[in-house]
């Protein structure tokens, strides 16, 4: 994409009827490392490729719990993602306080989309540079949504965003028809297969990916590295035998989110200043 004279301001239309600043914001999402989501009749699984900016640093957190029934995976400017997380958590807790019941995920997604749209129509603001995959439960069942910097939102059976997400999407497009009836374990394995596609040459391990699950009767939880490693190992081995083993691992503390190797702020700012956009985005 090349610069042109209509892209300085988010409030300037191009003659072709485009808002270039918004499109550039969506580019920022495409530069971030991949985030994948897929759902069945009972569960939604989010997976994220964890990239560390250097061997010395820890990777950026991309999976966030918003409430017991909602979680997100982000791609792009994670700082913007954290701000949106905070907003989403606040909305959920306020709704809980007034209505003593969980905020329906579809309504939260619309609120986030409206918030993002505001930034596309104010000359003193810039669009959020993060794409979200929102996984959640409401009365009508499990849902997966995508939120864009443009202020659009979409619902999906399965989707992937971020860099090399096309490879993951190709896998998902091939397999998505079977997702609705998948068990939780099968769904997680599909997610890991999709992550593998995005990683391409790299070996899949619990160090370079993260998985989170939310389901009917199961609060949102980010899998700890042991459970995740067990799932990864089961990808090669016989799929059905491993199912019981994995369930045993997950018995302990499903409500507690166990962080993967996060110490302090993560990768932002650790790399050299002049290295370009890949520093900010994961």
């Amino acid at each position, binding site marked *: 994409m090349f610069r042109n004279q209509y892209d300085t301001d988010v409030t300037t239309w191009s003659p072709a009827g485009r808002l270039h600043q918004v499109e550039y914001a969506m580019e920022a999402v495409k530069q971030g490392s991949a985030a994948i989501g897929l759902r069945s009749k009972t569960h939604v699984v989010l997976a994220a490729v964890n990239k560390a900016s250097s061997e010395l640093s820890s990777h950026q957190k991309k999976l966030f719990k918003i409430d017991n029934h909602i979680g997100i995976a982000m791609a792009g400017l994670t700082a913007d993602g954290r701000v949106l997380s905070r907003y989403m958590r606040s909305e959920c807790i306020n709704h809980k306080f*007034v*209505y*003593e*019941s969980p905020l*329906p995920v*579809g*309504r939260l997604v619309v609120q986030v989309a409206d918030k993002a749209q505001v930034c596309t129509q104010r000359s003193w603001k810039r669009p959020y540079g993060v794409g979200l995959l929102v996984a959640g439960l409401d009365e*009508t069942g499990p849902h997966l949504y995508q939120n864009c910097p443009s202020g659009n939102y979409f619902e999906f059976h399965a989707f992937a965003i971020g860099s090399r997400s096309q490879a993951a999407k190709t896998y998902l497009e091939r397999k998505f028809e079977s997702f609705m009836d998948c068990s939780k374990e099968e769904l997680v394995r599909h997610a890991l297969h999709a992550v593998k596609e995005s990683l391409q040459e790299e070996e899949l391990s619990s160090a370079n990916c993260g998985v989170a699950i939310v389901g009917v009767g199961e609060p949102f939880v980010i899998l700890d590295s042991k459970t995740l490693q067990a799932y990864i190992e089961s990808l090669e081995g016989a799929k059905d035998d491993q199912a019981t083993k994995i369930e045993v691992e997950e018995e302990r503390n499903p409500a507690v989110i166990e962080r993967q190797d996060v110490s302090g702020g993560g990768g932002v700012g650790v790399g050299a200043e002049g290295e370009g956009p890949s520093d900010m985005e994961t």
Partner: protein
Amino acid sequence: MDFSNFQAPGMYPYHASSSSKQAEKSYVDHPIMGPHNSSFTLMPEAPSKHTKYPYVTGTSVLGVKYKDGVLLASDTAASYGSTVRYKSVQRLKAVGKTTALGASGEISDFQAINELLDQLITNDYMWDDGNNLGPVEIHNYLNRLMYGRRNKFDPLWNSLVLGGVKNGQQYLGVVTMIGVHYVDDHVATGFGNHLARPIFRDEWRADMTHEEAVALLEKCMLVLFYRDRSAINKFQIANVTEAGVHISEPYALQTNWSYKAFENPTAGAVGSW
């Protein structure tokens, strides 16, 4: 008719000559006049914004759960102090498709609550996304509302009964004007607490049919009509089931005044007149 005992409810003490009393009005809290200008009369006193007394009030509301849903009952009277002023007031209201609300206390505050709930339900309906506010949500919303107003010392002077059915589950709750809230299998407000609840405790069962539950409510409403001076013999019952809310037309119950004890009511209490 003898109106000599009429009392308008809680009227502010009327000064025969308001101008001569101006000097006693205090502007201590007045934002502009400050603490030392108590005799200044050019600025009118800031209006009181704290509800102190109710004016037009409804009496008890009863609620019971039964096998297929929830029933609420109330009479259709609104009193102005000691006079039964309005006799066709509907104190029960449907809130969306899942819930019914009954109120005792200040009728104008009930009307204000209804306005708020109408807006809430309309907004919820406009989402059109398969989710809707059920009895749990509305109960909690009303609790937040009532408690919030109580904290500002400006309560909505009502006791609210909320009954609803969602996903096969019956729900019955109460919120009072100070924000006390609870759920139960059978509830009552006002005089109903003293006269109806003992009957509920003895005779309510979880598997009552609709007819049995209505009979129980009618028994209690009749007792209230006999004993509560603000009650009239004109009732409505709201029936909430999975199918929705239905509020009956007002109807009267058979009364019996020919008990021996009623014949000479002062026989046991000799007075000086």
